[in-house]
């Protein structure tokens, strides 16, 4: 089955204002498309349901990286290649730089956008765990105005999110307050390039006087959407890094993880690997230096 260009309408209004106007006049009728690395795959397989697409690719208002003293803001249509190539992101948000370098392949990174990765809402989204442990905020825009929500509240269910039908994801804002945190990101997948992860884990933690004084853990593919692991965090907060803490973190993760069985892996394997990744992160905390 192949996509049929006769049954899909696509327009390119060219400006953000015109896109928002159209989304507002007919909420839910038009589906935004940026780099197309998700929608065009569905299209090729003959399973792209939206018949009306509105082009975001090439709208400069949506493709930017703005660095401020206390934060970095990233336009929704910024590509993963843009993110990889950006020095401030490499220096200040290394987990995001690392995740960007994993996404697809060179050809996908030059087209796939950060906003697309989030709006698509795959449980396995590569950029999500890093954004979650960096306390990212999402800025939504519509003709009604703008609003910000914590990224941790963006996904509300499998492929569901907090956006209204007339809203567009405008930007992702990342506070720069993790310089002193130990940071970790690991993806477990089948193939180096292109592989959709079986499980991925990101972590940021602050160690003070041998105790974990702050910790954020977030996973891909351990729930119907990318999510923080709050119970596992609670099991570790205020604890020293030792065998007992590791065991209680593993137990908490096993209870908290709600992965699915699918073509790439199964729930039992995903949960166990998730626990192993948490343990690996804790082991890195014991070693000297600043692991990632």
């Amino acid at each position, binding site marked *: 089955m*192949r*996509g049929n*260009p*006769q049954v*899909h*309408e*696509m*327009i*390119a209004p060219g400006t953000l204002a015109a896109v928002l106007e159209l989304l507002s006049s007919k909420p839910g009728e038009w589906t935004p*498309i940026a*780099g*197309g*690395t998700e929608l*065009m*795959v569905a*299209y*090729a*397989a003959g399973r792209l349901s939206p018949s009306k*697409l509105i*082009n975001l*690719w*090439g709208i400069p208002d949506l493709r930017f990286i703005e660095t401020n003293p206390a934060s970095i803001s990233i336009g929704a249509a910024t590509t993963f*290649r843009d993110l990889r190539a950006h020095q401030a992101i490499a220096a200040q948000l290394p987990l995001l730089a690392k995740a960007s370098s994993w996404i*697809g*392949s*060179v*050809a*996908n990174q*030059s*087209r796939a956008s950060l906003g697309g990765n989030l709006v698509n809402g795959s449980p396995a989204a590569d950029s999500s765990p890093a954004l979650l442990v960096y306390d990212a905020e999402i800025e939504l825009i519509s003709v009604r105005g703008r609003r910000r929500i914590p990224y941790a509240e963006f996904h509300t269910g499998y492929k569901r999110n907090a956006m209204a039908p007339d809203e567009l994801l405008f930007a992702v804002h990342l506070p720069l307050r993790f310089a002193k945190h130990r940071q970790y990101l690991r993806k477990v997948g089948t193939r*180096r*390039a*292109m592989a959709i992860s079986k499980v991925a884990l990101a972590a940021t933690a602050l160690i003070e006087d041998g105790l974990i004084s702050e910790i954020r853990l977030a996973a891909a593919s351990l729930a119907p959407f990318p999510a923080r692991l709050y119970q596992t965090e609670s099991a570790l907060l205020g604890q020293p890094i030792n065998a007992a803490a590791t065991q209680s973190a593993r137990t908490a993760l096993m209870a908290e993880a709600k992965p699915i069985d699918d073509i790439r892996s199964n729930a039992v394997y995903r949960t166990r690997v998730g626990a192993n990744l948490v343990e690996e992160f804790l082991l890195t905390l014991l070693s000297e230096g600043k692991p990632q």
Partner: protein
Amino acid sequence: MTATVPASTPTIRFTVNGEAVAVRTLPMKRLLDVLREDLHLTGTKEGCGEGECGSCSVRMNGELVNSCLVPALQAEGAVIQTVEDLATNGVLNSLQQAFLNCGGAQCGICTPGMLMAATQLLEVNPHPTLAEIREGLAGNLCRCTGFMRIFESVIEAAAKNIEDTAEPASHAR
């Protein structure tokens, strides 16, 4: 082979291999099909058709893309380079020659994509390490060569870059 084209079909203008073209086509027609069917540039191959294999790789505005995932409308105003642009008057460029010398091409289906991915890599990074070559070509699958001969081809082409720019070989990291 003339398809019936609806009246609303827009004309999309872009540059391909240095030549300005105007194609009347449906917005959601894939760039891959526009290149092959409308412009008869059949060097670009279709492999998986879903962005996994890299056979349809072309360069668009200086970046590598899978042309099977680019709707024609998004090519408006773009500068596209396909494998047909590499040779000059039938004379292979140094990268193509290296593929020939090293056995980097066997059945040939992946070759145009490999060449474009390698062209992109060498433009961004003229002296890549083996790890960088592997990463640069990681989105391109080959079922014949086992990849080693392709990597060797790129290494040879990069070495030629070094000779051509008269830099000492030690600069190749």
